[in-house]
């Protein structure tokens, strides 16, 4: 039926063998200095995938060029939707130190996403103030992880 020409990622079986619900695709990545320092798949119901969806990672990586261009067009930190992939949208936010927060999502949730990024910025600052943190240090703090999940349930899911 020609559907192979439209590779719809939300219809791919995920790691656990179940079909994911269409409205709950969310992948969040923090990129510092061109390398991801934090990745998280967020799903409704508070469940978290342990392995990241590689297609999502690829789409987010490809969106980075658009983010770079958009950064220099506005003094705002919230960059809104910077790229699209079929029915998925990549929304971006940048800190003053040009560390990028990327969110891959379906549907529209502008206010929620803006709030999510804004609150997350504060937690990010607390992490980066650590004198041993560099732009390439991966964020492994469980507290930070917990905060991301809390913010996601508050604003996004």
């Amino acid at each position, binding site marked *: 039926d020609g559907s192979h020409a439209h590779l719809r990622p939300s219809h791919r079986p995920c790691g656990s063998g179940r079909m994911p619900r269409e409205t709950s695709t969310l992948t969040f990545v923090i990129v510092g200095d061109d390398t991801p320092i934090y990745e998280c798949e967020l799903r409704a119901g508070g469940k978290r995938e342990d392995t990241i969806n590689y297609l999502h990672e690829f789409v987010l990586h490809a969106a980075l060029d658009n983010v770079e261009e958009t*950064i*220099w*067009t*506005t*003094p*705002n*930190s919230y960059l809104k939707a910077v790229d699209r992939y079929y029915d998925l949208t990549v929304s971006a936010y*940048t*800190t*003053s*130190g*040009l560390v990028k927060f990327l969110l891959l999502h379906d549907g529209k949730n502008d206010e929620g996403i803006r709030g999510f990024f*804004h609150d997350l*910025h*504060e*937690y990010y*600052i*607390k*992490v*980066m*103030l650590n*004198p041993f943190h560099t*732009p390439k240090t991966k964020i492994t*703090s469980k*507290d*930070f992880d917990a*905060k991301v999940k809390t913010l996601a349930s508050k604003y996004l899911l």
Partner: protein
Amino acid sequence: MSQRGYQGGQLQPLVDRQIPIRPRNEVSLGAFAFLFSECIQYFQTRVSNVGELERRLADVGFDVGVRLLELLIYREKASKREIKVLGILSFLHTNVWKCLFGKIADSLEKGTSAEDEYMISDNDLLVNKFISVPRDMGNLNCGAFVAGVVEGVLKSAGFPARVTAHSVGVEGQSRPKTTILIKFEPEVLERELRLGS
């Protein structure tokens, strides 16, 4: 306990602690000067010439600058970033200097000899207050630490530059003033031209 980060005797997790809003905790000049002098003495035994000493001081300042940028823009400018050269220089001259030294810098000038050079001057740089340089150290200026802070701010904001500190004699003042010389990388000027038009 009145220590920051503690609540009910328990140390709060890092992400729950407040970002200090107003700098109520100012550090005494004497304490800073002591720490700074120890830093310099530490590096002195590990370098072989003046240039390297200035480089090491600048490296320490760089990390400070990176964090200052994030903190100050979040705290004071509601996350409105600077995307123009004049904007980031003015941020340095006013906000960063105010935060570090309690007063704004004395002047911000554009270099006459080159398009990519700018200078921020301070008649009496705080970090040099208790430092007298012996003659055999030549043109050492420990303001290299502040040059490092400036470089850290500029680089992480997306305006890479080479930043150095120089002593400049002033009429009517016994101590020279310190000029921080900023030389932007060519890509910064290219982008500035592209955006300006």
